[in-house]
């Protein structure tokens, strides 16, 4: 095939950045739909702020920590200075990435990724974490933790040298978010009333259409997340990634449907949405390497993991309102290992990557959160939790007139 023009490659990566952007709305709506009504504004607010803080910190620090440049090839840590410095002329354009995308394109595509891993955490800690400490944690997580492990592979660090493969981030993005979520829910404890002497007491999500919008928008954005990770408009590669991504998601939803029907005799919509997302997370590490057939198997297994994982975390009394740990951690690990099984055939580097990144992320998150917990505190008061964070943190209600009418204004003669 003739060489693909720079402008076309660049255009695709820009469009992909746009698509990854919309995943943030996906996370916001999915999480909002799966929490209780009284904490809806809070979760939406957090998701807006995560994205904004994520973009700004990635601009200030993250990008140059994740991609410190060739001096740090094979290394553990590098930093090439604060802010963005556009290489002059063609050095910031065609020459920047061998005719694939410009400097700014690179930044915006990567920046959109960065904030997603913090969104994953926000779902798991929903309904009980204090807003300001949470935002503090998110800032550090996106500014330091995500870029450091990201550098190990995508920034050309030691895991890359080792042969670890993670195409679009089953581990680098999703399980990183998942490990952060896990550390957080261990330190936070469960929502009041979730685990009783009589067993698990479900706290159903308050808006299934919203959650469904979220899941579909995440899938929609995943075309950019995975498709854009080809980092060029290469027709063969991008079209294969589209196919594997979609088949993986479809298979994930289907097996969750079947497994949870057999296991619980219930057609739980929230579970199937998790299954769909689990399929997407699972396929992400090897979306460019699997055949369509393998993609179906990898997605299907991810989907089958979901119901077991959800129950497993509940058994451990690790309360995760939206299933983020099951979707992003469990399926993220599975997807990364699947590359070793169905793709490269090399399982060892995959295992090393999963463990190394998991350990670093979990410890980072645990320590930061522990310090926050011991100082300003991590969890809202019981009274705030009962009243809901919308009223207590934001002084507003997600659905004003529906539940608490302003009677002089909302009348019917």
């Amino acid at each position, binding site marked *: 095939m003739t060489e693909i023009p720079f402008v076309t490659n660049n255009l695709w990566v820009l469009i992909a950045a746009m698509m990854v952007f919309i995943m943030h709305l996906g996370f916001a709506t999915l999480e909002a739909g799966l929490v209780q009504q009284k904490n809806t504004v809070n979760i939406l607010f957090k998701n807006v702020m995560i994205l904004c803080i994520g973009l700004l910190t990635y601009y200030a620090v993250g990008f140059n920590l994740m991609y410190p440049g060739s001096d740090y090839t094979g290394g553990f840590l590098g930093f090439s200075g604060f802010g963005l410095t556009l290489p002059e002329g063609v050095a910031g354009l065609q020459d920047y990435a061998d005719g694939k995308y410009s400097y700014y394109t690179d930044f915006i595509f990567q920046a959109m990724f960065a904030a997603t891993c913090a969104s994953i955490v926000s779902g798991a800690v929903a309904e009980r974490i204090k807003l300001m400490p949470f935002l503090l944690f998110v800032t550090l997580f996106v500014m330091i933790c995500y870029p450091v492990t990201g550098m190990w592979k995508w920034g050309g660090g030691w895991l890359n040298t080792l042969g670890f493969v993670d195409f679009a981030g089953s581990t680098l993005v999703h399980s990183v978010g998942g490990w952060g979520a896990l550390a957080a829910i261990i330190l936070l404890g469960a929502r009041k009333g979730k685990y009783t002497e009589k067993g698990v*007491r*479900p706290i*159903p999500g308050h808006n299934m259409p919203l959650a469904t919008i979220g899941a579909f928008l995440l899938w929609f954005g995943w075309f950019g997340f995975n498709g854009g990770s080809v980092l060029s408009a290469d027709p063969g590669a991008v079209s294969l990634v589209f196919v594997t991504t979609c088949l993986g998601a479809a298979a994930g939803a289907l097996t969750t449907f079947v497994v949870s029907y057999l296991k619980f005799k219930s057609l*739980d919509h*929230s579970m199937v949405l998790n299954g769909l997302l689990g399929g997407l997370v699972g396929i992400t590490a090897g979306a460019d390497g699997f055949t369509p057939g393998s993609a179906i198997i990898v997605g299907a297994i991810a989907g089958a993991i979901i119901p077991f994982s*959800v129950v497993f975390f509940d058994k451990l009394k690790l309360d995760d309102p939206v*299933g983020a740990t099951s979707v992003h951690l469990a399926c993220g690990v599975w997807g990364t290992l699947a590359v070793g099984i169905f793709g490269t055939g090399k399982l060892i580097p995959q295992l090393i990557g999963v463990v190394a990144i998991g350990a670093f992320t979990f410890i980072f998150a645990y320590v930061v959160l522990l310090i926050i917990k011991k100082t300003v505190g991590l969890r809202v008061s019981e009274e705030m939790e009962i009243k809901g964070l919308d009223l207590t943190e934001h002084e507003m209600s997600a659905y004003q007139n529906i539940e608490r009418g302003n009677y002089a204004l909302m009348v019917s003669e």
Partner: protein
Amino acid sequence: MKKVEAIIRSSKFEAVKNDLSKIGINFFTFFEVKGYGRQLAEHVVYRGAEYDIGYIARLKIELIVEDQNVKRISDTIRHAAQTGEIGDGKIIISAIEEIVSIRTGSINESAL
């Protein structure tokens, strides 16, 4: 004047309304209530864990009527609302001292 309160299945609302209308009763106030009683709330599964939803949905109808109509109204409601299954609900009759029409200021019989 008496107050008749009836806790009924919402699926029987239409029937009760129609039958009351047939005996000339074209006014009442109603609202949604939650019942807890012999009929148990549904057990459901969410994300692999079972729970019961805590109550059953019911409608409550309230109407103020003249003393001599109470029996007829009570019977009418009962027949319209009955299924014979557990959970049919109750009719409660109590005395009131006065009913005033806000529009006209007239009281009792003439307030209806």
